[in-house]
């Protein structure tokens, strides 16, 4: 038994569980990665909880989630519903919509930074044809986060689509037909039959999207670096900066533990709340 378990148990213990415990200890020290760490107790947590900057990075992360989640869910659902009908070239279309999922976040961020270039990017050029003056996108504090959200939704909509499509295909078509016979229109069938039956897939999408949303980093790092002027500084970017730019590894570990606790709390609340709306037939 051990022979089969050890190849995975050793790396998980050394590179996940061990560091997880170590992070808790580091979060109770002041440490710049170089000089020996000094014990400061809960000072890092106290500092974080009173620093308005902490509220800012959580607020920006929340803004990201609030913008991103409805966009990928509604977009993914619309595509999945369309692909679940008798459509020619379904496999090809599904393949194209899924394509951005296999691309790295860095490439997505770079390509969108280029598409959304304020001076000569293709998006503003096209808007210009219609006489609309495009915004400054990532160079404008007000538009930096919407730019990140747009790029992220483009990348992830195909992932959501595939999960919802699998959920739709598991629904018994007779139930939808029965509603049609009873005279229910398209919207009525969607809201009263399809969506309740799709709720397990929706639940999965929401749980995963929130876990990933709180950890948003790669695309922020490459698109704005948290700027301009900190307008898109998210939690993980802050952890990275605290560690490698400001030499506050202790504070960074405290912030990462706060983030973990927030993710854990949000996930537990969702799992406990699922009975109210998730329908496991």
């Amino acid at each position, binding site marked *: 038994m051990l022979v089969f378990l050890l190849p995975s148990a050793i790396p998980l213990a050394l590179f996940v569980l061990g560091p997880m415990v170590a992070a808790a200890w580091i979060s109770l020290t002041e440490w710049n990665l170089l000089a020996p760490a000094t014990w400061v107790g809960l000072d890092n947590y106290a500092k974080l909880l009173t620093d308005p900057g902490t509220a800012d990075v959580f607020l920006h992360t929340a803004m990201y989630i609030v913008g991103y989640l409805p966009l990928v869910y509604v977009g993914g659902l619309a595509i999945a519903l369309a692909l679940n009908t008798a459509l020619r070239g379904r496999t090809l279309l599904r393949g194209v919509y899924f394509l951005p999922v296999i691309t790295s976040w860095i490439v997505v961020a*770079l390509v969108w930074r280029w598409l959304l270039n304020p001076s000569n990017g293709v998006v503003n050029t096209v808007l210009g044809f219609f006489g609309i003056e495009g915004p400054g996108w990532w160079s404008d504090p007000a538009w930096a986060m919407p730019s990140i959200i747009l790029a992220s939704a483009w990348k992830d909509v195909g992932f959501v689509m595939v999960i919802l499509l699998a959920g739709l295909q598991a629904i018994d078509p007779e139930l939808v037909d029965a509603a049609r016979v009873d005279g229910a229109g398209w919207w009525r069938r969607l809201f009263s039959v399809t969506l309740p039956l799709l709720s397990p897939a929706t639940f999965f999408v929401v749980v995963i999207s929130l876990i990933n949303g709180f950890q948003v980093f790669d695309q922020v790092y490459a698109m704005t670096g948290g700027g301009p002027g900190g307008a898109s500084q998210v939690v993980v970017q802050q952890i990275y900066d605290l560690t490698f730019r400001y030499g506050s590894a202790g504070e960074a570990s405290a912030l990462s533990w706060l983030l973990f606790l927030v993710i854990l709390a949000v996930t537990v609340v969702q799992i406990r709340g699922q009975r109210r709306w998730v329908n496991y037939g």
Partner: protein
Amino acid sequence: MADATTDTRTEPTTARRSPAARAALTRSVLLHVVMVLGALAMFFPFYWTLVASFSPGTGLSSTPRIVPDDPGLDAYVQLFSEVPFARVVANSVLLATVTTLVQLFTSATAAYAFSRLPFPGRTIVFGVYLATMMIPLQVLVVPLFAEFRAFGLVDTYLGALLPTFAAAFGIFLLRQAMNQVPVELDEAAAIDGAGHFRIFWTVVLPNIRPALATLAVFAFMGSWNSFLWPLVVLRSPELQTLPVALAGLQGQYTTEWDVVMAGSVISILPMLAIYLFAQKYVIQGVANTGLK
């Protein structure tokens, strides 16, 4: 997208065909048009990346055309001559290949233990394994960096590789697949005198090939696209991986978008090839995780 089609359904019609049939046809045509336009919009950033990479001098003042006027490979030449880019590509290939092979091994053995070997505390150990999926990498970065520095692993391939050697996702995926393989097959082999190693190798593994393919694609993709840990642990330019080097390019060539886009094309192509080849396994893998 779907709402556009619903509106047409109620529109009155004067055609010779029956109104219902005509409305259904309109709806179908409209849906096809919308979906194809949507797919083109989704694909456009890829196309634009490709065009920009073949349009020399694309920068602050010029925007490429839909069809490049004067296509050239200048950006690619510049990329490989000024940055150790061939080395960067080789690094990514090496790390992704090793990660994939090791993860297949550690996931398959662990999945076999959880699927076939009853041992005390199995449920609890499996629970701990699953819980590691919820721990964000960001929490681990600082202590991992300190740990690896103490052992001289910073700025080495091994340092980049070690944390990827075991992943709960793969173990979970393969365990699900192994649970579908009938235990009677094991028993038949056991009667013939096969031990666990032979049952594992000759009975269970050949029966979960699709799941192994799915895991291989995901492990490769995860490594190929990973950013935060390689960014932290690989410091010298000649050890960097593609995503890290690309992020660096952007700072270096802020005005030369053709070079940055050429790098992006090179980063996308291998994944695209794997995707075209194994599309079924990728999409099935995602669909299954949602249905668990």
